[in-house]
């Protein structure tokens, strides 16, 4: 238990610190990299939760694929100029601040709701109630079985969502097809 707790605090601290640096950093490139560090720390947390599969998928999908696209966007948009504007104290306007504060309140409310709803007692939110048993989540086979039977509808809906996003991106990129 001792090591597990220590690892939890270590990865948690890294994730939190890196996330703070994402928001507070001046250089967008460094922010993207810190987000990757944060994702890697989350993967570490998944490993301490005994689900190496989720950890590896986290690295492959988020750190490996999605963040590369982020990096491309930041690199090619040459966000340095905007960065210099902010550093020079250009007025940012109140609207983004209000929007951000609103989103923060929503997030906090969601977190509180999720934590209150979680069954108390052994093992935390993942192991209780209607959620599938931990043994099934551990093995890739069990996960696949669950994904294509119990959660089949959610799976298909998600894939349609991704296709919509892809079509949208193509339409935006190529105005005249």
């Amino acid at each position: 238990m001792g090591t597990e707790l220590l690892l939890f605090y270590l990865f948690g601290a890294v994730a939190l610190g890196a996330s703070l640096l994402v928001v507070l950093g001046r250089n967008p490139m460094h922010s993207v990299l810190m987000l990757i560090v944060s994702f890697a720390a989350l993967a570490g947390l998944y490993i301490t939760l005994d689900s190496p599969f989720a950890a590896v998928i986290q690295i492959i999908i988020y750190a490996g694929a999605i963040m590369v696209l982020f990096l491309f966007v930041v690199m090619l948009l040459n966000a340095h100029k905007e960065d210099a504007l902010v550093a020079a104290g250009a007025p940012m306007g109140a609207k983004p601040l209000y929007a951000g504060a609103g989103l923060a309140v929503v997030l906090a409310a969601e977190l509180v709701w999720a934590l209150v709803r979680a069954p108390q007692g052994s093992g935390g939110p993942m192991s209780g109630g209607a959620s599938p048993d931990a043994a099934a989540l551990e093995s890739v086979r069990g996960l696949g079985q669950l994904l294509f039977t119990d959660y089949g509808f959610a799976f298909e809906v998600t894939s349609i969502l991704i296709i919509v996003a892809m079509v949208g991106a193509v339409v935006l990129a190529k105005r005249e097809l």
Partner: protein
Amino acid sequence: MIPLYVAQFGIILAVFGLLLVSAAIMVYSERKVAAIIQQRYGPYLVGPKGMLQPIADVIKLIFKETLRPKGADRALFMLAPLISATAAFTAFAVVPFGAETDLFGLIDHKISLQVADLNVALLVLFAITSVSVYGIVLAGWSSNSKYSLLGALRSASQMISYELSYGLSLASVLVVANSLSLTEVVNAQSGNWFGFIPRWFVFLQPVGFFIFMVAGVAETNRAPFDFPEAEQELVAGYHTEYSSTPFMMFFLAEYINMVTAAAVATDLFLGGWHGPWLPEYLGWMWFLAKIAAILFFYIWMRWTLPRLRYDQLMTFGWKVLLPLAALNLIVTAAGVIYFGN
């Protein structure tokens, strides 16, 4: 009797050292094979038959000055080669290279000859490959040079494009082997069919093997897919601005990635350490021989085939290799369901 953790630490050190040595051997053999193919002598002055040439090269590189271009991002410029080299070394950690052994009676339990026997080894390998893109992308961006940036962009788009086919060919193997652990994949390939054909997955998955090899060449940025360093267009691609030790790290990472790709191909398709005549505890010799054969093939290909055009590379990756890999996976899955395991 030595304790288990000493033995495991020894294995880690051995893997690390052997990877370093293998990079040196690869540099030498690449130059020698290239010379033979082009009817030249190749390196012959330093040491017997020029065999100490890689060591001379390393010493030269270390004593060069580390240059950093003006306007380069100081931290990322130094971080990029570290990411490349670390990812290259880490990937080999999940690759098994021999049967379970008690190291000639030195330890009580049998341990497997690999750094970490994970039950999701194949996915870890894939994850490390996808992270290693960052070394190249960051090198290109932080150099503050247009050749570096263009080389990095090409390299990243190439690696992302071919990663999909790479992943799908891995998936078809794990469907056949019914496991995500590399050790179990290798052990599923022991024995023979009809007494003389080895049960290697290359015979069950010829298309998968082809896709894996092609995508492996593209992933390691080797000719004929070496666009990131197409010298006519990009000087030297993402490492144009690098010199001295940081450059050496990219160089090292490239060769170690080749060795790892060959080792993984051996484990997945060529039966790993299984082979005739040798007893099981000497299986690593078979492993080394198979790796050497694949690496020779890589070098041979590099000095035989000309570089493709960039649009040809992308068309081939997305319109030929990826559909082929997806089809192969579907056919394999159907076959496994129909015939049973």
